[in-house]
């Protein structure tokens, strides 16, 4: 009897799991409300900016996650905030879902049009507006990507340091509260967005800190800016963001150090931070990952847990930083401490870290990789890493680990064969166990990637009923008809 029950449970779990990866996407036939909306769309942004082509829709229905493509019914390419507002009003009138789209580099299925609807592709709004060099701020539109902004700023001695890896749209990064390797020193998007211009579900345009305002700090009213940072398109369409800039570091030194165990590597990290070293990047690669990188990039790092470090500062302060860090790593049984200042040597030292994703994929050619993402307080990091590695071995999964240890955040790059449902199921259970392990250690189920489609249940566990009620209340106020990116972040109320 019990075995029958467990088998039934397993089947329903499997069924639910497979459905989450193979959602019934959108409306297959265009409904009448869409047809009447189409003529309104065309009159607002022009014939050439409204696309019904299947290839265009499929392109805008998926991102870099493993979630299946859910194409929207129509893709619009507005050119300015007035058009976005007018188009949003039309969608609101007809009850059509609105999905904002930046660069499609998200990792949690945030752009999947699970209920069909209208995709607002904002790539034509690609101007850098209002650079204020002395004030260290700049305002950009959604089509400006991180690398494009840094290239624009290269003559000014300023840069925007948040680096999530992909060349993502800055407004998209604000929408998902992106972070990156530099977060330990420069912070994440939450700390670096000063103001947002948001188009709400009914078309009204909101300036979260007041129109054109960019003070470095404020205590005026409720913090609407940080409400929208991380809202993943469920509260409004971000059409402008004012960002905090930093000075380009005078000099950069990169270093690498191996450790006999994870505990020593994390201990070194904690001690480096406690010593007050303003380290810019501190990245951890476990032995499986180092082995993969050695094979992929033909390097010869010792196959041990390794820390990759980067220091920013003036020439004198760099010497001091490197010396302090070397002493700390040596006291923690670190070996093979190498460091370099010249650009080419630095590239070579960090090559393993840069190619980590491809090295992981190369472990099993023909497979896809899924990156988990949890964040725990630093003191619990060794325990969760050790338990996760045991879990991977027990479940016969390939999962090299790369982490931003300075923040207690790490990713398992689980390499999985997408055509093997049994393996997909094991991966899904593993990620749930990992997220629950992190929650049990006072952590979060998503450090950088966002909630998107796959982590809605975990968000409920993490936040608790009251917080979810408050979030649902805010959503009801800003988007009572649930047209803004439905199906993401918050679960539907029926469940």
């Amino acid at each position, binding site marked *: 009897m019990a075995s029958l029950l467990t088998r039934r449970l397993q089947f329903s779990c499997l069924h639910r799991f497979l459905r989450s990866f193979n959602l019934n996407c959108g409306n297959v036939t265009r409904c009448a409300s869409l047809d009447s909306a189409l003529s309104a769309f065309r009159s607002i942004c022009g014939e050439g900016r409204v696309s019904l082509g299947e290839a265009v829709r499929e392109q805008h229905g998926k991102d870099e996650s493993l979630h299946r493509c859910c194409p929207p019914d129509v893709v619009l390419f507005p050119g300015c905030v007035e058009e976005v507002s007018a188009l949003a009003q039309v969608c609101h009138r007809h009850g059509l879902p609105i999905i904002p789209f930046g660069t499609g580099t998200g990792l949690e299925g945030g752009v999947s049009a699970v209920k069909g609807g209208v995709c607002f592709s904002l790539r034509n709004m690609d101007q850098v507006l209002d650079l204020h060099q002395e004030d260290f701020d700049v305002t950009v539109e959604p089509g400006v990507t991180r690398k494009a902004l840094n290239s*624009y700023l290269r003559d000014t*001695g300023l840069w925007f340091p948040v680096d999530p890896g992909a060349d993502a749209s800055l407004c998209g990064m604000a929408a998902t509260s992106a972070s990156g390797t530099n977060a330990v020193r420069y912070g994440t998007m939450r700390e670096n967005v000063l103001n947002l211009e948001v188009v709400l579900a009914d078309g009204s345009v909101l300036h979260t800190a007041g129109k054109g305002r960019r003070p470095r700090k404020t205590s005026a009213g409720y913090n609407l800016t940080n409400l929208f940072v991380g809202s993943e398109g469920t509260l409004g369409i971000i059409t402008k963001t004012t960002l905090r800039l930093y000075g380009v570091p*005078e000099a950069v030194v990169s270093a690498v150090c191996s450790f006999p165990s994870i505990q020593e590597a994390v201990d070194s990290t904690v001690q480096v931070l406690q010593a007050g070293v303003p380290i810019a990047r501190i990245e951890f690669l476990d032995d499986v990952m180092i082995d993969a990188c050695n094979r992929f990039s033909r390097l010869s790092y010792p196959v041990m847990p390794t820390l990759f470090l980067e220091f920013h500062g003036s020439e004198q302060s760099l010497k001091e930083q490197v010396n302090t860090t070397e002493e700390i790593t040596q006291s923690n049984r670190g070996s093979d401490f190498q460091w370099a200042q010249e650009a080419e040597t630095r590239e070579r030292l960090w090559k393993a870290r840069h190619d980590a994703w491809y090295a992981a994929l190369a472990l099993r050619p023909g497979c896809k990789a899924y990156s988990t993402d949890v964040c725990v307080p630093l003191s619990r990091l060794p325990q969760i890493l050790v338990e996760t590695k045991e879990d991977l071995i027990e479940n016969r999964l390939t999962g090299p680990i790369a982490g931003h240890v300075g923040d207690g955040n790490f990713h398992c790059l689980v390499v999985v064969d997408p055509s093997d449902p049994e393996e997909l199921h094991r991966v899904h259970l593993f990620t749930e166990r990992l997220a629950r392990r992190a929650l049990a250690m006072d952590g979060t189920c998503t450090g950088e990637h966002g909630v998107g489609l796959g982590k809605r249940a975990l968000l409920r566990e993490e936040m608790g009923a009251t917080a979810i009620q408050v979030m649902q209340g805010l959503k009801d106020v800003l988007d009572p008809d649930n047209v803004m990116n439905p199906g993401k972040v918050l679960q539907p109320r029926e469940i």
Partner: protein
Amino acid sequence: MNLTTQSAASQPIKVESVGFGWPLIGCAGRWLPSGASTGFTLKCFRRVPRVKVNVSSTMSGRVLVGVKRVIDYAVKIRVKPDNSGVVTDGVKHSMNPFCEIAVEEAVKLKEKKFIKEVVAVSCGPQQSQETIRTALAMGADRGIHVEVTGKEYENIGPLQISKIMAALAKKEDAQLVILGKQAIDDDCNQTGQMTAALLDWPQGTFASELTLEGDKIKVVREIDGGLETIKINMPAVVTADLRLNTPRYATLPNIMKAKKKKIANMKPADLGVDLTSRRRGRYRGRRSARREEGTVY
């Protein structure tokens, strides 16, 4: 020709030879169709031992670097409605990317103590001074702004610029002139070569590696068949190609310091240069045909 052999080993094998400014002829290597740098060569000449020596005392130790203010490479170019040119008003301008590489190389030579002074030169209207300031922030010591404005600036081309550069090279007693290989707005790829011809100096164009050896320069050039290594006497003209180096970003402290460095102003007439254009006809731009979205059945 000297070609690098990319074998299974991680280090490419370079065979060097002395050509005294002429490329090697009669190479018996095999030319492979794929890739620019595969093949091998015979060592035909006696190899001269490489001796890195600091600049000799007879040379001035001064390098002239030309920098051009162009429309930024990331900007979408639009043609003016009357087809007379491209829209430049309100459009972001910056230093030509190949000129950035040239400035970086000159600053690297100064840091390695092969040369003593880097002078950045730009010809154009008042805004060209911003480009010179960027070069100063990257490490140049002083700037020269040759003022060319209005109609003259619209009609100026590589011939006039090379006359100016040649006159300046003589005036400043430069031992090396480094330019970008071409500008991204006109893609002429002529200024470096013309400057060398006017000065009757050797030229090392499309440089992807540059080494000073006593009073000679070893230049590795990127050519169609691969890489060619030549050794030329100084003074010389070198033009920078893409892989010569990665230009540094200007940092804020350096930008502050650059504000105090001097930029000398002069007119082409002060250098005895005549700017009359030999070109006939005006620019006629044409927008490409509009692509209409249609229905595929």
